[in-house]
């Protein structure tokens, strides 16, 4: 059934005009916000605890907008997959980066590590960056292997490959960097292994230390990138960095310091565009000490 839904959505995107699809997405998201109580309450609670709204009513309104933004993101990702090419991507995505960052993105043979978050349209962010430099995006596969295969085929594109952190050889990502590719990873979700406890909106949250460890062992530059929605089918790919960290010889301390620096950049972006963040995820689940 899941595969059928995925295929059906793909067909719907192929035959429907974008304004209709976006309107439909907003309507479905509005309904989901009402019906999906658990996610609604998580989102409202997260927004309140982040201090982004002083009132429950304000948090509720922001959460609803975030639900709708997510649905629009899903639809526009599917549309962009069909429309965006190496020749025309700049019509849809404006690169907002310093000259130094843009140079590193264009430099052949220079591997880069990119940390991102569930803000704006991360699918478009990956596709646009892959137009500049081949990208290996680390992702969490679906449990259903058939669905995973379908969705993965849809999400991959020109210069963009999706790789599960579990399915490949251990040196896979080092190899990608050695070949001058971007290795990209989302760092804003709760993880159970290979983690450090960072401060996110003033509260401790577990975050993957993968990006930090990749940088500490390879010394490849680390950037933070997010594509925020400007208007219908138009995005700004905001890229900051390189984010650096002094190596002290204490592995966990170094991983924490760099992951915290990256998380601070993510937080700054979320504060600028809070209605474009995926608030329905249970982000704050630290109960024990700072490392695990």
């Amino acid at each position, binding site marked *: 059934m899941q595969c059928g839904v995925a295929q059906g959505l793909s067909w719907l995107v192929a035959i429907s005009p974008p304004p209709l699809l976006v309107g439909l997405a907003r309507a479905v998201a509005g309904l989901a916000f009402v019906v999906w109580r658990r996610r609604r309450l998580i989102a409202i609670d997260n927004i309140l605890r982040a201090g982004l709204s002083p009132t429950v009513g304000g948090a509720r309104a922001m959460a609803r907008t975030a639900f709708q933004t997510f649905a629009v993101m899903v639809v526009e990702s599917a549309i962009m997959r069909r429309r965006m090419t190496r020749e025309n991507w700049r019509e849809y995505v404006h690169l907002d980066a310093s000259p130094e960052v843009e140079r590193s993105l264009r430099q052949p043979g220079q*591997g880069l590590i990119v940390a991102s978050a569930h803000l704006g349209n991360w699918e478009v962010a990956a596709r646009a960056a892959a137009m500049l430099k081949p990208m290996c995006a680390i992702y969490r596969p679906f449990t259903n292997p058939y669905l995973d295969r379908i969705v993965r085929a849809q999400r991959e594109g020109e210069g963009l490959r999706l790789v599960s952190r579990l399915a490949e*050889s*251990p040196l*896979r990502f*080092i190899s990608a960097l050695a070949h001058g590719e971007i290795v990209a990873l989302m760092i804003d979700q709760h993880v159970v292994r*290979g983690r450090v406890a960072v401060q996110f909106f003033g509260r401790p949250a577990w975050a993957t230390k993968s990006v930090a460890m990749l940088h500490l*062992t*390879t*010394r490849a530059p680390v950037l933070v990138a997010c594509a925020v929605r400007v208007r219908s089918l138009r995005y700004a790919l905001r890229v900051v960095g390189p984010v650096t960290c002094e190596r002290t010889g204490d592995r966990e301390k170094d991983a924490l310091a760099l992951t915290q620096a990256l998380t601070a950049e993510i937080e700054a972006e979320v504060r600028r565009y809070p209605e474009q963040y995926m608030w329905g995820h249970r982000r704050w689940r630290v109960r024990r000490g700072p490392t695990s």
Partner: protein
Amino acid sequence: MTREEIVVGLRDLLTRQEQVKVDVSSITEHTRLDRIGFDSISILDFIYDVEDRFRIQTEIADLAAMERVSDLIDYLEVRLVG
């Protein structure tokens, strides 16, 4: 540093890696790196510790070319002696 000292040092580091599920005493020079129990992220902890223990800075291209434990030992032997 001799090759034997390198092997002892690596064995000690492997013993300390939580993610290594196999019996470290069963790991030989011929063991493939992808058979030790590392995944693509946990191996980074090991590489960091190797750099720290042996006081070297590894190169991405050299790491990417490694397949077996012997490749890592050979690499360290050259870097530490040469």
